[in-house]
């Protein structure tokens, strides 16, 4: 059985750039989110109705979460945090429509964690000044410098593998469950119509796609906000 991302096609330049289903599904999510943003904000009204209500509620929830977690003075991060949350959540629940979640590829999650890592250090240096930022590595004692550097480097690793491990774990268990249900269907002579694959995996989808998916994206944005705001204070 093969659980890794599959190569869909190759771009025939520079000796062929392989395009995996991770990339294609990321494009699908990008298009879907862009269309969602355009459609829901095209006709803005003073008193919101219909879909504008939904979007305003979403924006308000993310604004409140950001200002509560990072402090009122760092509310301007909410646009990035909101985009991150929408992208990761939609990626994680993509298994519901039978596509491979882009977050089940360590390249995606590590790229997102690298963004967080850069934000931690850029905004840390910006708000404390480069000198104060570098001095932070010598706290509480100068000989702690190597340990501090290691723990800073461990942040993106644990952040990316937490998301990746949870999503790819769900993906593998779902694939095996569907395979098992297919063989049960074959055992009763229904290989052309795998009846057992209908209905039974709902509980697994509920836990692995919806609960774990939304929880992990929430944890990712919460940790990003906490790390960045701690680095800035």
């Amino acid at each position: 059985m093969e659980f890794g991302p599959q190569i869909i096609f190759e771009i025939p330049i520079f000796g062929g750039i392989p395009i995996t289903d991770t990339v294609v599904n990321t494009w699908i999510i990008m298009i879907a989110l862009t269309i969602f943003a355009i459609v829901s904000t095209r006709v803005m009204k003073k008193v919101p109705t219909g879909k504008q209500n939904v979007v305003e509620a979403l924006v308000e929830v993310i604004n409140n979460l950001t200002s509560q977690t990072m402090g009122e003075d760092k509310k301007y991060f909410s646009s990035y945090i909101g985009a991150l949350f929408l992208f990761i959540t939609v990626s994680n629940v993509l298994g519901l429509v039978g596509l491979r979640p882009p977050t089940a590829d360590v390249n995606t999650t590590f790229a997102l964690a690298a963004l967080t890592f850069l934000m931690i250090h850029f905004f840390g240096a910006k708000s404390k000044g480069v000198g104060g930022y570098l001095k932070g590595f010598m706290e509480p004692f100068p000989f702690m410098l190597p340990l501090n550097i290691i723990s800073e480097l461990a942040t993106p690793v644990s952040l990316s593998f937490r998301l990746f491990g949870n999503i790819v774990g769900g993906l593998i268990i779902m694939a095996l469950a569907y395979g098992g249900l297919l063989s049960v269907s074959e055992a009763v002579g229904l290989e052309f119509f795998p009846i057992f694959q209908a209905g039974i995996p709902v509980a697994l989808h509920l836990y692995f796609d919806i609960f774990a998916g939304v929880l992990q994206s929430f944890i990712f944005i919460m940790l990003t906000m906490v790390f960045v705001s701690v680095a800035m204070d």
Partner: protein
Amino acid sequence: MENANFITVFLDWLMTFETSALVAAATAIGVGLAMIAGIGPGIGQGIAAGKGAEAVSYNRKSGKQATMVMLLGAAVAETSGILSLVVALIMLFANPLIGMEGTAIVMVASAIGAGLSMIAGIGAGIGQGIAAGKGAEMVGKRPKHQSAIIRTMFLGQAVAQTTGIYAMIIALLLLFANPLL
């Protein structure tokens, strides 16, 4: 041969098997070892359940909320068990070591080591369970602060998972990108 060390005899005996058979046998041991991590979520969820029951007994009115927090926390505490299950299933159904060319003893040790490393999940499971229990207890006492308590609980549980994640990285490295082979 009579005076030979027991370990030497054992290793010689091992070398009489084919490489693929040895790796398959080691995989079987490794899969079993990986699932030992289930101890952690078991203890942790038990603690959470106990604390949840306590919270309900103190304050019946907030019983539903305390139960919900207990279930959410216990579901997160299950993560290390799931990660172990994933590594065990990968080793059973998609083991890259089977059919690979290399030194038999290193491949055998890698398969066992991948399973062994997942035992680290015990710590994460117990820790997350304690967090879930405390969360349920405090939601039972102060149901008004439920959302703040759940947020802090999830955040702490995510950090408590870190060592378990490291264990999984090492297990996957041993299986898929082993530098020792």
